[in-house]
């Protein structure tokens, strides 16, 4: 009987990866990293890590003294490969430390909700001027057929997402869009935010003068006048690394007193203005209130199922 320390360490790390992803899932922290739609993909990763851990366990203790190294594969041996049998060196310790870093920080460092500083790095309000001309980022299309064949989306959609209308057919989407367009007051919820957003930016003329109610965090630019700010949200396609900014420029006197990253909810009227040479919607505020940062601060694109 021989105990292999390095193999045990590897087993422990595989288990830790599995546990980290599982714990992020249980504590619902995972939604601060990725679009909930892809949560089952991460769960798969957690399960795969656990299976790898079980397999790795068989290597921790060897009965015979000979190393089991790839003689049992019955195939040509792979030479440039580290099987975790070789001696510990400084290089190996560092490489194990690197692999352990995300496990440790994943357990102990809290996830941070993206803020105005990141929004600024991602282009800030400048990006909004572009979206008003070409706003199509919010639709995400998949087909039933490809989902079945594809390794990316082998899971069934979360029923909760369907309930929340995060996934619908093209027809339903169009109907919903029309219904929303007819309302006199646009009350933007997290579920229909992207529909309104696309509509207002594409057909601004139809919405001028309408009442609108929405929430978001405050984003400011150096080039803004004192009474201007952007009520913005992050839209997450897959994970927070691909977050993009959506939001509306607003104008009201108290804007100067509100600091960046404050979450506010506003009621106002939709108007039109120009910023940096681009025409874009602006909200003239009638009433506003400071709110707590919501439980789910991010928006996710609506998946439109195409039925062929």
């Amino acid at each position: 009987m021989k105990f292999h320390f390095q193999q045990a360490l590897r087993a422990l790390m595989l288990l830790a990866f599995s546990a980290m992803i599982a714990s992020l899932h249980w504590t619902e922290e995972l939604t601060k990293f990725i679009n909930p739609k892809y949560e089952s993909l991460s769960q798969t990763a957690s399960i795969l890590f656990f299976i790898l851990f079980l397999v790795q366990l068989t290597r921790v203790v060897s009965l015979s003294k000979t190393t089991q190294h790839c003689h049992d594969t019955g195939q040509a041996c792979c030479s440039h490969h580290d099987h975790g049998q070789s001696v510990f060196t400084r290089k190996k310790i560092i490489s194990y430390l690197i692999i352990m870093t995300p496990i440790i920080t994943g357990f102990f460092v809290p996830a941070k909700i993206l803020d105005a500083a990141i929004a600024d790095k991602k282009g800030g309000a400048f990006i909004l001027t572009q979206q008003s001309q070409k706003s199509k980022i919010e639709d995400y299309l998949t087909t039933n057929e490809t989902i079945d064949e594809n390794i990316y989306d082998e899971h069934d959609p979360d029923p909760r997402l369907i309930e929340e209308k995060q996934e619908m057919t093209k027809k339903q989407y169009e109907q919903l869009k029309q219904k929303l367009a007819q309302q006199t007051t646009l009350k933007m919820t997290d579920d229909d935010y992207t529909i309104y957003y696309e509509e207002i930016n594409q057909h601004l003329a139809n919405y001028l003068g309408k009442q609108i109610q929405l929430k978001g965090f405050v984003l400011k630019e150096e080039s803004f006048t004192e009474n201007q700010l952007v009520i913005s949200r992050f839209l997450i396609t897959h994970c927070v690394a691909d977050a993009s900014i959506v939001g509306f420029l607003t104008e009201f006197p108290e804007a100067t007193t509100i600091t960046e990253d404050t979450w506010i909810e506003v009621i106002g009227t939709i108007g039109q203005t120009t910023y940096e040479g681009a025409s874009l919607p602006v909200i003239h505020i009638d009433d506003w209130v400071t709110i707590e940062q919501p439980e789910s601060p991010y928006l996710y694109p609506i998946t439109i199922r195409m039925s062929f």
Partner: protein
Amino acid sequence: MERLPIPKYVFNFWFIFILIVGFLPPLILNFSVLKGLISSLLSLHTIFLSILIEALPFVLIGILIAGFIQIFITEEHIQRWIPRNTLMAVIMSCLVGALFPACECGIVPIVRRLIAKGVPIHAAIGFMLTGPLINPIVILSTYMAFGNNFKIAILRMIIGFVIAIIVALLISLFFKGSQFKGSLHPPSSSINTQTPSFITKLLNMFKHAIDEFFDMGKYLIIGAFLAAFVQTYVSTKTLVEIGDGLSTSILVMMSLAFILSLCSEADAFIGASFNAIFSTPSILAFLIFGPMIDLKNTIMLMSVFRLKFVLTLVALVATVVYFSILILSAYL
């Protein structure tokens, strides 16, 4: 048994990182700066972990496929499947890559295993370049991101495919052999004559996958960290402001694709958000270059191949993409 040598820069990188994190704040001694720094470090950490969590399922699938190739596919199979003719081999491998849904980090272990099994380097690179770029999910997300318009999606696939073939052919001119780091021992004939049972084979497949994970893992983590670092501290605004005129804007969008290291299914939406700032050719350059080469997967390639080969490959892909798009821009 060879140990994988870790390049020197890793030590330097962590050394510098610890230096910045550990010693800079007290020197500055400014509370608001310190607060901002901590806040940005937390953002950095969140983006870093999210890239990792996003990539891990694909990497795990990648290492399992690599393990499968190692155990179940023999050199004889490969020899029979890959055409002798270089051009035919490249076209075939690019086609296989196009049919094979993968992401740019999950494909690295697969490519390494294929080369170890005797797939010529040009064929393996062709497969690696088209794998993440051309697949149903990428086509559909591109179609949707550009306002239900197939034009960009189709151009992305066709131009990307041709570029992959050109790069793979160039690789066949410049490089022979595996280009692996360290010496590759000539494949020895099987020592074991008796065929192991299926269960043993399956177990070995998983064991290989584990070894592959620990070989690749650290490079994936460093790559994700660098990409997160860039996203937290480098403003895309500054990049965007440089991008004036066609040739520079193509360069800007390509560098953006490189440093952002987005997954190829999600990058279309980011690309589309630049649609009004930049012309179609530069957006296409972003969409084609990103899935082929980015910061995260360059670091991972360095774990497998010689530094010289990786740098040449990155330079080749960048040059071919740049000039193809520049030449085609007149017709786009």
